[in-house]
């Protein structure tokens, strides 16, 4: 029947896996296991995005959220020698519930007639359309390779450019915060490191 359609089953299966893994990720004392649970949890969320008809976001989820971020996290777990994490007061679960309940109620009261918004009616987003949305401005008329013309809804080129600056800030900022101090002290005191001074002279 309708209730056991493949995509419904897939949704419940993936959601259950994602939720269990997320719970593991925030409760496991061993942080390496927690990071692993996080990676697989995000991996399963990629399935949700694929189910929703947004394959590009699914792939990005696999590459960045399920791939890069847990790896970096495990690196830092090792570098800070913090294999195990203790818990604070479990009372905080109450706070989390307090926030979650209104959100759940809102989630279920939105769209009172779900018949109008079945997932099967949505069309998957092509990567080309996504790229056009990302790299043009709102209201522009763009002809796709298929010959259709589309009107750009989002047009986020400016945000795209600003994101480059955010990444620059994060990049430079991490270096400022984590760089070894000896080099800085030498520069501060005005005396160049010997090797660098020679190189500069040679350039001149």
């Amino acid at each position, binding site marked *: 029947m309708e209730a056991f359609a493949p995509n419904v089953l897939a949704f419940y299966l993936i959601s259950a896996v994602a939720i269990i893994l997320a719970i593991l*990720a925030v409760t496991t004392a061993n942080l390496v296991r927690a990071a692993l649970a996080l990676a697989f949890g995000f991996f399963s969320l990629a399935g949700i995005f694929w189910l*929703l008809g947004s394959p590009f976001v699914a792939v990005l989820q696999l590459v960045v959220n399920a791939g890069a971020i847990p790896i970096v996290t495990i690196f830092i777990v090792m570098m800070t020698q913090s294999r195990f994490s203790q818990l604070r007061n479990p009372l905080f679960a109450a706070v989390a519930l307090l926030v979650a309940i209104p959100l759940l109620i809102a989630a279920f009261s939105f769209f009172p007639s779900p018949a109008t918004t079945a997932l099967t009616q949505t069309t998957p987003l092509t990567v080309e359309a996504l790229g056009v949305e990302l790299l043009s401005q709102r209201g522009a008329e763009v002809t796709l390779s298929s010959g259709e013309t589309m009107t750009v809804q989002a047009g986020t080129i400016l945000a795209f450019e600003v994101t480059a600056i955010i990444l620059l800030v994060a990049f430079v900022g991490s270096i400022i915060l984590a760089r070894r101090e000896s080099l800085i002290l030498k520069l501060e005191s005005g005396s160049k490191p010997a090797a660098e001074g020679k190189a500069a002279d040679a350039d001149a």
Partner: protein
Amino acid sequence: MLTLNHFLALGAILFAIGLYGLLSRRNLVAILMSVEILLNAILVNVVAIARFNDQAQGDVFALFIIAIAAAEVAVGLALFLNVFRLNGVATVDPLRRMKE
């Protein structure tokens, strides 16, 4: 039949789990993992709303969220390395020195 409500509920549950982790963990790296869960809950929300309303805006928004979350991890991890270097542990426990 799948409706938007299913996906929003998944987002809300994940958000609550992340929030619990953020508040209950002592280790800073674990806190950062909880922040990642929060951001993924939002991703589920945004992509679901975008697809159900057939609006590419949301998918584009999701790309930005992923990129900015990665930048956030970079800054956070650099900070936590510093905490570890100065205190020997990367937890919230030594961070109570300033209260007079």
